[in-house]
């Protein structure tokens, strides 16, 4: 049994949520939450198990239908994939637990569970796929479930935001698919392992890469293409916002990294990596500036996501040189993705509690929150530590690595951006946290909306995620070992 599970791990990670999804829909009211919980309770250990296997036995390959690439489709789990699957499972489990009470058995929110399970399964499928066309299907699955979740509240702003997101997502997928077509035309395969051997820096190939990049950048909401993210993430129901900011944007980023660092080599496409770095830096600055201007908590957090996404894209210029700096950047970028996932979901979950309790999330209305909802306030504050990149936190380790990479690779200007970004983050975080300690609790209007103290499962989920982000800052070594398993040649460097 045990080794059967070991063999089938990648498939199981996809099958479990995908099986749970239709059943959650089929069984409907009364059983959907249990189904989701059961699926989460199964998937999370599987993900942990996968990570363990990868660390112990190296990268895992899985030939679907027994054909293997390039004829068939393969699943592949190296350190990067396993990491993303793992963080997905952690965030997913806690969001599920949070959702149990957040949505309760409200008829209106019944659709959350099947949609969310679809999203979870699609994310796993995406992170595990080793076939660029299959990735297109995964992208569509992820996007559509995400969009459907955004529209879940049926509020007008939410619906418009969902529409905007939907169109952007489909367009992104089309660009990506066109790129896939060109790749196939140029190199005759859609299997990454094969492509890794055959890919050449010729016009068609680079054009394909260019198109895929454009589409994925759009889906990742990198500045200046972030137009769809703030409305979508801020108007969705909070658990949805959490998943979107924490995981969904990372999905398209994951594919970008695969294509750039793993399949193709950045130096095979000179200049483009710098473009991505510049856009990333602009995102850091612009997103933070916008976050500073917001007056609603969830808008601020959404813009913070826009800013934090920027850090991820520093990976491309920093890794392009190879060597130690590249592997520092590799660890830094992925570590940032992980810690941001944990912290940002914690923030949105906390924001959700605020909204649920006090009926609004106006910043100037949050005075005295630390008295009214201490655990919530603390969860938000702790998550903020990672956002600012202050030690001890995963954010700090990530920035530490990025700064090291930029100085180590002689591109010190990226380091300046990183430090400046940290200060800006501190500025907008304390715009939120400061008023928490204000004396006048009457700011929080006790409308009859207030359902009283938030349930321990919700507070607990938010706090656990925030603490997780902090723990990464001191006990992150295992994760780093995992990230480095089967790292692409370019960044394998010397294991830090």
């Amino acid at each position, binding site marked *: 049994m045990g080794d059967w599970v070991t063999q089938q791990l990648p498939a199981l990670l996809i099958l479990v949520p995908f099986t749970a999804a239709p059943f959650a829909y089929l069984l409907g009211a009364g059983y959907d939450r249990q189904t989701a919980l059961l699926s989460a309770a199964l998937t999370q250990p599987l993900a942990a198990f996968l990570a363990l296997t990868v660390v112990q036995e190296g990268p895992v390959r899985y030939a679907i239908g027994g054909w293997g690439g390039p004829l068939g489709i393969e699943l592949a789990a190296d350190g990067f994939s396993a990491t993303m699957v793992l963080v997905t499972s952690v965030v997913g489990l806690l969001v599920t637990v949070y959702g149990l009470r957040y949505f309760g058995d409200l008829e209106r929110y019944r659709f959350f569970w099947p949609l969310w399970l679809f999203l979870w399964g699609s994310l796993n499928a995406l992170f595990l796929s080793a076939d660029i066309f299959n990735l297109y299907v995964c992208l569509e699955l992820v996007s559509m479930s995400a969009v459907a979740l955004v*529209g879940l509240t049926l509020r007008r702003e939410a619906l418009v935001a969902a529409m905007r997101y939907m169109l952007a997502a489909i367009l992104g997928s089309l660009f990506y698919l066109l790129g896939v077509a060109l790749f196939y*035309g140029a190199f005759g395969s859609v299997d990454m392992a094969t492509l890794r051997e055959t890919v050449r820096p010729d016009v068609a190939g680079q054009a394909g890469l260019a198109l895929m990049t454009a589409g994925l950048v759009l889906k990742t909401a990198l500045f200046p293409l972030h137009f769809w993210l703030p409305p979508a993430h801020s108007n969705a129901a909070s658990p949805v916002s959490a998943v979107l900011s924490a995981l969904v944007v990372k999905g398209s980023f994951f594919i970008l990294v695969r294509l750039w660092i793993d399949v193709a080599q950045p130096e095979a496409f000179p200049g483009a990596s710098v473009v991505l770095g510049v856009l990333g830096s602009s995102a850091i600055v612009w997103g933070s500036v916008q976050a500073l201007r917001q007056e609603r908590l969830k808008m601020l957090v959404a813009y913070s996501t826009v800013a934090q996404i920027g850090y991820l894209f520093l990976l491309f210029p920093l890794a392009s040189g190879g060597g130690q700096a590249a592997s520092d950047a590799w660890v830094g970028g992925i570590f940032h993705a992980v810690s941001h996932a944990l912290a940002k979901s914690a923030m949105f979950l906390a924001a959700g509690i605020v*909204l649920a309790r006090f009926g609004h999330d106006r910043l100037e209305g949050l005075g005295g929150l630390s008295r009214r909802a201490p655990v919530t306030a603390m969860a938000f504050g702790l998550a903020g530590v990672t956002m600012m990149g202050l030690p001890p936190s995963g954010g700090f380790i990530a920035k530490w690595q990025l700064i090291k990479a930029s100085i180590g690779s002689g591109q010190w200007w990226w380091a300046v951006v990183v430090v400046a970004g940290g200060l800006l983050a501190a500025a907008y975080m304390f715009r939120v946290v400061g008023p928490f300690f204000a004396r006048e609790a009457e700011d929080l209007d006790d409308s009859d909306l207030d359902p009283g103290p938030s349930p321990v499962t919700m507070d607990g989920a938010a706090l656990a995620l925030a603490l997780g982000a902090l723990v990464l800052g001191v006990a992150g070594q295992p994760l780093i070992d995992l990230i480095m398993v089967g790292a692409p040649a370019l960044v394998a460097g010397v294991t830090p």
Partner: protein
Amino acid sequence: MRAAALALCAGVGVLLGRAVLSMPETEAGVAPLIEANLAASGVKNPVTAVLLNFRGYDTLLEIAVLVLATIGVLSLSASKPGTWAPVAAQADPVLSALARFLAPVMVLVSGYLLWAGEHAPGGAFQAGSVIGAAGVLLALSGYARPAWVSRFALRAAISVGFIVFLGTAAGSMLAGGTLLEYPPELAKTLIIVVETWLTVSIAAILISLFIASASPAEQLRRRTESEW
């Protein structure tokens, strides 16, 4: 604005064309491999072989997309999901007569399409669409609220294809293979089983998509107050 957009699109077009033309004249791709393994796939049509066997996983996910889209649409729809909303108060007699005559024929046609899919273009999607059309026709002609259809039945119909597909996939794993690894001798049978149930689901999906989006606006409005 429009001028700028036009210029940009033109730019994309030109560069894209250049890239397309720069592709190698001939590129075998995986065609030879497909030829070589066609026999083991359980179907004669190479495209179907790719769809249902070599890259059956894509198809699995594609069904997932379909079911997901349906659930998404239903989540947006006004009336309680899965119920048959009254569409036409009373249909005109001609339409209903035509519907009564056509519906069985369409079911028959879809059966043929399903069977043909194994060697010629066709299969679950075509078959499902035809039945779906029949359902739409019935709905339009006022037959669309038969008492024997419960919500659960519709939900079951929507998801059964996907569930069966997943079941065979899981079965192949339990049988010791990998995901969707059909034993050659069983491949054909399994594929036909999956295709059949997919036909049911696709039909149900098309019908419910039609019904779900055909609901009066005031019902929609009622459900959009006091959100948090």
